């Protein structure tokens, strides 16, 4: 509904923003105040996403699972690798994680434009919308992790203390995805066709990220291209943890953390300095 209100009997003084940047302390507090909203929206959107389908939420796992089967089949045909549980599990490990990336980035790209009525009517930090989308993508990713765990054990991949590295890597992945998602979220408000080519861009991006292959599979002369990709390090580390059963290399972790921080800072800066325009561009 077209409802808007502020949170209490405060005095608000609205002044021109310097270079589009709102007072950061106040913005951060307002954003924290909207966390219940972001969480409620994430849960509601997740429920509504497959409301009209017979299998409902099961699709959030079935989609990457079926795609994983297709990729495993293609790999067995073109690379000549045997189509076995190990190949399928390797594909699923990378694919489930990239589905998380895809969900955060493509969801962020559309969430602001889809919330036009709320943006036109209510005053709230717009970043609460992509945060809500990040929460929804995480809620979608968690069940697929459980499904992956079954394949992981069945295929005989190692499990140990080093496996716990998967959790910080998921956080690093989430931060990187969120930062990149904010850039696409802003771009879509200004250029609506970004949403049209984004699925193709994400598909190409997946082929340039160690999702379906390992870094060792790539010839040295192409390694530099892969390393320019902000998602490469975290996915390379992800593969080391899941399939080699070891602590990820320090180089990949450091590189992944730097990519995450740069993506986050750049994404937040672009988003909040441009969000003033959202109400007149939507």
């Amino acid at each position, binding site marked *: *509904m*077209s*409802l*808007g*209100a*502020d*949170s*209490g*009997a*405060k*005095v*608000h*003084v*609205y*002044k*021109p*923003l310097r270079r589009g940047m*709102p*007072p950061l302390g*106040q*913005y951060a507090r*307002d954003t924290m*105040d*909207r966390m*219940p*909203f972001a969480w*409620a*929206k994430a849960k*509601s*959107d997740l429920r*509504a996403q497959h*409301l009209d389908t017979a299998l409902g939420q099961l699709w959030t796992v079935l989609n990457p699972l079926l795609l994983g089967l297709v990729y495993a089949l293609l790999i067995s045909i073109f690379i000549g690798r045997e189509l076995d549980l190990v190949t399928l599990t390797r594909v699923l490990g990378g694919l489930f994680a990239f589905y998380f990336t895809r969900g955060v980035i493509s969801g962020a790209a559309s969430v602001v434009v889809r*919330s*036009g*009525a*709320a*943006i*036109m*009517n*209510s*005053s*709230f*930090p717009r970043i*609460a919308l992509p945060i809500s989308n990040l929460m929804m993508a995480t809620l979608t990713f968690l069940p697929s992790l459980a499904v992956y765990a079954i394949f992981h054990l069945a295929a005989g991949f190692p499990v140990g203390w080093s496996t716990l590295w998967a959790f910080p890597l998921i956080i690093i992945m989430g931060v990187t995805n969120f930062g990149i998602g904010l850039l696409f979220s802003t771009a879509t408000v*200004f*250029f*609506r*066709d*970004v949403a049209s080519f984004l699925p193709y861009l994400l598909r190409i991006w997946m082929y340039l990220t160690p999702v379906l292959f390992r870094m060792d599979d790539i010839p040295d002369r192409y390694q530099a291209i892969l390393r320019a990709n902000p998602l490469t390090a975290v996915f390379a580390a992800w593969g080391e943890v899941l399939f080699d059963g070891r602590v990820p290399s320090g180089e990949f972790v450091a590189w992944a953390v730097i990519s995450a921080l740069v993506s986050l800072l750049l994404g937040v800066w672009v988003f909040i300095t441009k969000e*003033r*325009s959202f*109400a*007149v*561009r939507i």
Partner: protein
Amino acid sequence: MLSESKPSPAVEDLPAVEVDGLAVSYRASVAGKQTLKNTLVRMGRRQKSTQLIQALRGISFEVPKGSLMGVIGANGAGKSTLLRAVAGILPPSEGTVTVRGRTTTLLATGVGFNPQLTGRENITLGGLAIGLTRAQIEGQLEEVVEFASIGRFIDMPTKVYSSGMFGRLAFSVAVHMSPEILLVDEALSAGDAAFREKASAKMQELISQAQAIMLVSHGMSTITELATHTLWLHKGRVMGYGDPAEVVQEYTKFVKAGHAAAVWEEI
């Protein structure tokens, strides 16, 4: 958001809304559809893809507590932009807007956050988005549903609502969320004659409770009946401010003289 919050002083005698030298400008697309393709084509032709819109210039006024300020003017005068600036949705380019108290807005009949969700879920999301607690929202929900007369539709997806139901529900939500300052854009046109009467009575009730209302309307009779004072905007500037009957008379004369035909873009 976009504001500096400070502890409330003794605010009883201060106006609910103070606007001082407000200007709002922004860049809007002139490239038809806002697409990368159109932008690149225009760049190739060395044409600008955006232009600066000066929506409001040099606006100053006050809205005392317990009053209703009517805002009138032709399409594109800047009325909706003014309400959005007061609500904190559009920050000023120049000047300041001081708002004392909780604002509730009814600016356009939107469809909430997700048309797949029920009215109840969308109201909850809308309330949480603007900082209300779940308890505050749920405490008002039954009254909201009763006032809007939408009955069992409250638990149905909003995609099945008629435009009249949207309008009634949106108005009901806005007036029942304990507003101290209510910003309303043409909402009285929602619903049938009986609902308009009910809505008008509810607004009178809010004024009697010392709450401040800003009402944008093209209905001059609504303004003269409800407003305690009136602001007339034209092309983003103040043309008149004061007694509703006098301002409406001046505005009507202006319109009859044909000036309002030269409207600006719809804002």
